[in-house]
């Protein structure tokens, strides 16, 4: 099968989740004998990481024309994770790359410009199926389908409700919904997300296929080293400091744990719009001596943070999937994750709590710190589980979703 895929970002130029997942999906599809034409807002040579016969990178700007993308009216927007984090993303790309500017400074304009240019490829590139990702590229998918008449599969990695809670940006919400309604099939990254699409977007459940994310196999040297007091155990939070990730619940849990066990340091890695609030909250709770902020971690530092941790906690309020716990596991940390996450559907050997159940979260964290057998068993069994999750297998489910989209209705 030939796949015309509309992507938004791709390693090495990615801000996180979406680019990594897109890379995994492409890799899995290629291993299963599919050909992928991936259209991106901007292409650089480093992105070509696969056999060029099976994988073609196309620059949206060079499609040689435009179509009229349907613009949905709106007065205000703060999309991406937030508008602020989009700016941070742009800055980091500028700093880390000699490539010309890849993305427009106004996200919504760029989304529409991308859609109108990228869709043109549908008239040139041979393909059997169209695959778009999230609201960012789904308009391109809709327009491409108009040109070629091929079925469109929309892949939902996150929704506006995950990013903004109960106050979604109307314009983004409308684009998500329009994409799903137009699409022949919808792929959700978890059952958690599927339920959300049914409930908040009115998409019929039978139209949605769940395909969980995987992790790329990678050999890591497991080593527990840190410069903190040897007797102290470490509980790690690693993620953006935003409402969605629940850093405030993490601190409340920390307070409860410290009431029983004082030899624990809580390391919070990452930054985001809640950073100041989180810092002052740690002071208000009177636990600032035991809470350490490491800021945003890159590359090796991330692996080291996981390796130093006695427990990784992901207290997310709403997490469509959540790849971080899988990375923590691969680096030898047992994980405690919120039930409000897609990843809790695929890792059995993890501790699970409702993000709001502080007492239970503290209880489970204390147990891991207190009972070595628990730590050891979680670590060993979850590692085995994660090793079995491959994109090659997940891509088979994606191909099945394609087949359903291709089947006559």
């Amino acid at each position: 099968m030939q796949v015309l895929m509309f992507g938004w970002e791709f390693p090495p130029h990615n801000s996180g989740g979406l680019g990594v997942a897109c890379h995994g999906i492409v890799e899995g599809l290629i291993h299963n004998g599919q050909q992928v034409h991936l259209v991106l807002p901007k292409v650089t040579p480093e992105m070509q990481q696969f056999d060029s016969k099976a994988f073609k990178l196309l620059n949206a700007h060079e499609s040689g024309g435009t179509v009229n993308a349907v613009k949905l009216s709106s007065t205000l927007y703060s999309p991406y994770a937030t508008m602020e984090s989009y700016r941070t993303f742009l800055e980091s790309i500028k700093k880390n790359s000699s490539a010309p500017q890849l993305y427009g400074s106004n996200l919504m304009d760029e989304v529409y410009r991308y859609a109108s240019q990228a869709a043109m490829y549908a008239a040139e590139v041979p393909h059997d199926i169209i695959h778009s990702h999230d609201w960012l590229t789904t308009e391109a998918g809709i327009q491409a389908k108009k040109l070629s008449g091929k079925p469109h599969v929309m892949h939902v990695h996150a929704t506006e409700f995950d990013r903004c809670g109960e106050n979604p940006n109307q314009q983004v919400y409308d684009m998500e919904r329009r994409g799903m309604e137009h699409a022949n099939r919808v792929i959700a990254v978890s059952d958690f997300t599927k339920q959300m699409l049914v409930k908040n977007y009115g998409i019929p459940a039978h139209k949605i296929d769940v395909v969980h994310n995987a992790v790329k196999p990678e050999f890591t040297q497991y080593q527990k080293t840190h410069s903190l007091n040897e007797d102290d155990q470490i509980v790690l939070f690693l993620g953006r400091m935003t409402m969605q990730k629940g850093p405030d619940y993490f601190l409340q849990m920390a307070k409860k744990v410290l009431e029983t066990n004082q030899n624990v340091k809580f390391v919070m890695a990452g930054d985001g719009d809640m950073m100041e609030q989180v810092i002052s909250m740690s002071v208000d709770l009177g636990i600032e001596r035991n809470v350490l902020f490491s800021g945003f971690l890159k590359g090796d530092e991330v692996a080291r943070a996981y390796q130093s941790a006695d427990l990784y906690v992901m207290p997310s309020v709403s997490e469509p999937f959540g790849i971080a716990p899988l990375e923590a596991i691969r680096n030898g940390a047992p994980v405690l994750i919120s039930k409000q996450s897609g990843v809790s559907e695929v890792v059995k050997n993890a501790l699970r709590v409702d993000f709001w159940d502080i007492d239970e979260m503290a209880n489970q964290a204390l147990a891991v710190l207190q009972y070595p057998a628990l730590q050891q068993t979680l670590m060993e069994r979850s590692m085995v589980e994660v090793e079995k999750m491959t994109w090659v297998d997940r891509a088979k489910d994606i191909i099945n979703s394609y087949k359903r989209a291709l089947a006559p209705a």
Partner: protein
Amino acid sequence: MNHYNKTICFYFQVHQPYRLAKRRVFDEHEQDYFEGPTNYENQKIFEKVAHKCYLPTNALMLELLEKHPDFKISYSLSGVFLEQCLEYGEVGKSVLDSFKKLFATGRVEVLSETYYHSLSWLYSKEEFAHQIKKHADLVFKLFKKKPTVFRNTELIYNNEIAEFIREMGFKGILAEGWDHYLEWRSPNHLHNPKLAELHSEDQRIAKENRIRKTLPKDFTLLLKNYKLSDDIAFRFSNQGWSEWPLTTDKYAAWLNAADGETINLFMDYETFGEHQWEDTGIFDFLRHLPEYAYKHQIGFKTPSETIKAYDSVGEVDVPHLMSWADMERDLSAWLSNPLQESALKRVFDLEHEIKSNLTKLSDEIVHDWRRLQTSDHFYYMCTKYWNDGDVHAYFSPYDSPYEAYITFMNTLTDFEEKVTEKIKRSNVDSMHVAIENLRVRLREVGSEYKTKSLKS
């Protein structure tokens, strides 16, 4: 009575654990440890199983016993199950009464086991023997019966256990008829265990805890016919099974076709009504089984009668621990990961402290310690089923083995603190008594001295 071609030996296991209450590290002392994860859960489960299984099945068994003068069955009832009968009001009482009626027919045998349905054999022979005696006492108190045939928790068995049980004075023991050890032999004959030599200390313990003065002449091994047992216990309602639906007629023909003189059908009593629901037809199947068996000249015997009626055909050597659980027939359901190992070790590590301070601890505390030994707690911690995704094999009140472990360890930690505090308090108390005694003595000596010096 010898007109039968062969006989069926029915044995049913009846057990309910005391599931632990949810417990967090920072919870206060002194709550009831054994309520079940949610309020009164143990009682609710007991009542549910009573209505689905114990009461209707006992009624049916009584009906069959009344209808067929030659029908025989046997049970083992764990001590913690019997305790729940005594504890849980009207329902508990009617369950117990229905068992009393069955035993009163004289054609229902009660077997011996460890009171707490524990894995004590693996950790402490003294505990093991103690719990067997304690169970026998309760059974005698309730039913006026003295068990003479033993079955260990989950049919855990090897040569050594057999020898220990023989040394305690039993006539026989039950075990799984697993091909691995039977090889070409059939479980449908009586066998003897291969003689094992006990450690002298273990032998002393067994002798000290004898249930009778002189040992029986023979000691017999009854082996479960797992194929024919599991046809009822596991496969009965499985519509994917090529033999489904299993009619009484067909099953009786299989029994007839089987070799040997005894077919030992050992199973969980909850097979009737709980594992196989009433609408699967399990009760009707059972109701008609005796008459179809009689058609083929197949009769029924209790374990004791079976042992008495037939001769052993040879020896079976089981050097390693075997159970009736899962495909593996080993201990992996209770003891295959670090969670289970650490939890079991810690609960039995308390033995010395508890036993050397028995006078300082209440009976209740000692009883709690033993209830923490019940095998189910460790079964819930098994990650084997969890990883295989085999939810059917995973009967647990917990969301995960990890939750089961956390609850158990938090309870055990609290319990350990309680024990230490009680011992300390009692030591302080006795020190106070000693000081007071000294004071009194000093006063006496003082006044004696005064009188003496006044006299002189």
